[in-house]
């Protein structure tokens, strides 16, 4: 917890892959217990932004401050930073050779150094809370996509992160499995978890986020409350994006 109540601040973030500049000066501020939704077309830089915040991608320029600490400076222990920032991926990325329970306990035991017994207890509590207790001895490939993604969320939660980054977590799911995952995220928001959510689920983003950022071509083109963005977007590109979503019947 830091003085100004900001959990995450991104300042003028630039990131290129080869010659392609994917992020072209991102500025973003997320307060404690706030949920920020990131919307925008595929390729607009949402995933890259989240991966940069988790330090999975080295950045070219700019600053990322998590809980008051500049994590982009030299000599920063990336492993320690990542322990405070949970990320959930579109493709779940569970460890296929481990049971559900071991997937969840791995981080606490090996990164945080919590004893096996304590980690097990903590993980079982979380699995119970999200209705996955009976799956604890299963391997991921026996679970539905929705269950796998819920396990992935639990795995990130077991690290007791300050901030959760959700990267299109429902995009790889069959439509009937989306709700169970969204409900988990709603529960997290209700519990006060600070989250940055990249999503294509506009209705969900409007419900859950206190602020929405519209990413376009590597910048946050427009930012505001869900009402502002979804009801009266100022930017022409935002209007066009939302119109295409409505036309596709996804809102």
């Amino acid at each position, binding site marked *: 917890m830091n003085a100004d109540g900001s959990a995450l601040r991104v300042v003028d973030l630039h990131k290129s892959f080869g010659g392609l500049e994917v992020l072209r000066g991102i500025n973003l501020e997320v307060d404690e217990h706030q949920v920020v939704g990131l919307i925008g077309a595929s390729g607009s830089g949402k995933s890259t932004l989240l*991966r940069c915040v*988790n330090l*999975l991608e080295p950045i070219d320029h700019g600053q990322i401050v998590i809980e008051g600490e500049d994590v982009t400076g030299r000599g920063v222990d*990336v*492993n*320690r*930073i*990542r*322990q405070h*920032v*949970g*990320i959930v*991926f579109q*493709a779940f*990325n*569970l*460890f*296929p*050779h481990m049971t559900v329970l071991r997937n969840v306990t*791995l*981080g606490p035991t*090996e*990164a*945080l150094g919590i004893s096996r017994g304590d980690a097990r207890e903590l993980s079982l509590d979380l699995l119970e809370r999200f209705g996955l207790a009976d*799956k604890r*001895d*299963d*391997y991921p*490939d*026996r*679970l539905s996509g929705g269950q796998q993604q819920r396990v992935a969320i639990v*795995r*990130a939660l077991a*690290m007791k992160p300050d901030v959760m980054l959700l990267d299109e977590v429902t995009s790889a799911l069959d439509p009937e499995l989306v709700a169970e995952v969204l409900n988990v995220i709603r529960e997290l928001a209700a519990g006060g978890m600070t989250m940055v959510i990249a999503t294509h689920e506009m209705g969900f983003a409007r419900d859950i986020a206190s602020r929405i950022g519209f990413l376009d071509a590597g910048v946050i083109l427009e930012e505001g409350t869900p009402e502002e963005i979804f009801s009266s977007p100022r930017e022409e590109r935002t209007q066009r994006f939302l119109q295409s979503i409505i036309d596709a019947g996804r809102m």
Partner: protein
Amino acid sequence: MGMGGGGSPELQQYQPGDPRLPEGQRTSRILGPLRAEGARGVAIALISTVVVLALIVWAITSSPNWPEVKQAFFDPEEFKRTFPDIARAFLRNIKYFMIAEVFILAWALVLAVLRSLQGPVFFPLRALSIVYTDLFRGIPTVLVVYLLGFGIPSLGLPGVPSGAAFWGVVGLILSYSAYVAEVYRAGIESVHPSQVAAARSLGLSRTKALRFVIIPQAVRRVIPPLLNDFIGLQKDTALVAFVVAIPEAFKQGQIYQAADFNFTPLLAVALMFLLITVPLTRFTDVLLERQRRRRQAGTAA
């Protein structure tokens, strides 16, 4: 399941080894289709096999040179007389194999991990690992065994073991590690980068990600090629015959062959190798099957 069931209908729509097969109904890939065809299929297969075998045996034994061939290669008396000694000598091959295998598995993993290290600091280690594998994969194993088995003991270095068998086995280890390292490396590279990302995002260090996430998945994937290399190694323990004084199976066979002017002892040696290598091949299949089954059981239990 019974063979006389006339082909149970629910089984016929599945291929053998199909995960949807009910638990506990083990089917082999070779016999599975037969069983699915029922008693009539089994009977036909049996008769046709007997006929084909009989034809082959008849064709061979009725050829004009068969008596000489039989005398030189398949002499039952010679076999009975030499087999016990050869079997005893073969225990040495097994010992060489077991010792070499342990070191190969460990050393090759080190080589593979060194090669997968990233960053400019590790360039020398990476380069060394590459040079090593190129070198030992490029030299015939028999040459390595010969060089070490004769070469090192001849130096008479103080404090260094001087047994030819010892250095022959070291040669096997050095040579096979290069192959096995490449197998490991293929496995490591086959693990998707998103797995590394997932492990690292939990705050695991690079080393721990490798240890808990990458290597376990890599090793599981390369078990069949690893076992193939085991089988090759088991056979290549015969190379130690070139350097040792105390005979292993091949050398023992050679001694009898030279003394008795008869090749039957060498066929006895071949039989010993087959007794190990064929079950090892089948074991590979069983292992894979069990692994797949365990992963896919789960929720039903």
